[in-house]
């Protein structure tokens, strides 16, 4: 027998504001500065070699007891301060991370509780180094769709817990930190359409070395995150440059209209090569936070944004192209009006 639905009433739905924008950003950098010389205690390398290959001079490591939730909460409070909003006004918390060491629950509900945003909707997203740009895209659509008013987007990583300190190819790359942005209603378009996508065939290019099941059943080593540097470099430069251009096209602007270019801080060589490939005009400020922060994955773009705004390198109200790419492989790019 086929079930026949009752005559049903139309469901209510929501509509949000026409536009959304980033209201403010905040960052948290752990106290401990780790030099290349300290990294070289575990690998056969040198300060000069690391600087040449990555542009990294120092990175920050969180304290052993300092968690992803601790760092995310600190960055969130900074973002709240920057916007003048209160935690109770936040109705959604999105945490982008791959280093929260609990399979479940996610970090976001704990962050929401910690900062006083309960009962905000709160969930984590796993898009690796591209997590923040994915979060900004979701937040933009949520505010415009009416499912949220103020969305706190946090990129946070404690990569020092997932770094093989003896791996010459990756030990010097990673750092810890958190960056946050609050997306809310706007009377002008503050976030352009996101150009995003994935290429799962390349999943092993950047990956946790072993699954948790393999760790349990085969007593294999700690599942640190490793990458195939050359392949990542080629993909990040030559596949991502057209994505960056597509984001400009979708935003309806030209490179010359930008005030800042804020790519994921993966490696200074990738940043330099992207700038060259995109033929960006010289007046555009380029994010180079990686020199003192290392690659903090999902946290890198908001941290770099905060540094550029605080230092005056990028103007409040200016246009920034942000592009992030990482394990998956996944990527996301959009143009934003800087808060």
């Amino acid at each position, binding site marked *: 027998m086929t079930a026949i639905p009752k005559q049903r009433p139309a469901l209510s739905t929501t509509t949000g504001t026409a536009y959304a924008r980033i209201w403010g950003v905040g960052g948290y950098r752990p106290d401990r500065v780790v030099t290349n010389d300290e990294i070289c205690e575990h690998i056969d390398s040198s300060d000069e070699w690391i600087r040449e290959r990555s542009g990294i001079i120092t990175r920050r490591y969180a304290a052993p007891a300092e968690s992803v939730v601790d760092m995310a909460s600190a960055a969130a409070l900074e973002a709240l301060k920057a916007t003048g909003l209160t935690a109770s006004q936040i109705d959604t918390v999105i945490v982008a991370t791959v280093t929260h060491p609990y399979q479940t629950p996610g970090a976001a509900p704990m962050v929401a509780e910690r900062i006083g945003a309960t009962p905000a909707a709160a969930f984590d997203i796993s898009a690796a180094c591209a997590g923040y740009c994915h979060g900004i895209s979701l937040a933009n659509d949520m505010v415009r769709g009416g499912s949220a008013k103020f969305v706190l987007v946090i990129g946070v990583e404690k990569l020092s817990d997932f770094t093989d300190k003896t791996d010459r190819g990756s030990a010097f790359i990673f750092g810890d930190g958190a960056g946050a942005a609050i997306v809310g209603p706007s009377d002008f378009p503050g976030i352009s359409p996101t150009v995003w996508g994935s290429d799962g065939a390349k999943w092993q290019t950047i990956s946790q070395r072993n699954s948790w099941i393999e760790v349990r059943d085969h007593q294999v080593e700690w599942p640190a995150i490793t990458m195939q540097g050359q392949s990542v470099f080629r993909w990040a*430069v030559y596949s991502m440059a057209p994505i960056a251009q597509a984001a400009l096209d979708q935003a309806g602007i030209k490179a010359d209209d930008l005030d800042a270019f804020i790519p994921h801080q993966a490696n200074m060589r990738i940043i330099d090569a992207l700038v060259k490939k995109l033929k960006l005009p010289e007046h555009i400020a380029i994010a180079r936070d990686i020199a003192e922060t290392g690659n903090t994955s999902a946290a890198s773009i908001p941290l770099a944004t905060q540094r550029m705004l605080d230092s005056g390198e990028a103007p409040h109200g200016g246009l920034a192209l942000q592009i992030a790419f990482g394990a998956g492989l996944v990527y996301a790019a959009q143009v934003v009006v800087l808060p």
Partner: protein
Amino acid sequence: MADSEQSILEGLAEIVNEETGLDTASVQLDKSFTDDLDIDSLSMMTIVVNAEEKFGVRIPDEEVKNLKTVRDAVGFIAGAQG
């Protein structure tokens, strides 16, 4: 149409010069990219991508590690052009 090995060598030398600043005359068939020309893995990838564009060939990631000398690269490109 396939380029001659000499013209591939000259084209490759220009690409190496643009990436590293090395004199084109120093890019000779028997030179090792890493040991003689001091080209690191990331610069090598840039050279590979530019060579793909210039010579109309595809050089897969897994092939790059086999291109130890300039002769290896010239030979691969000539072979790929068929």
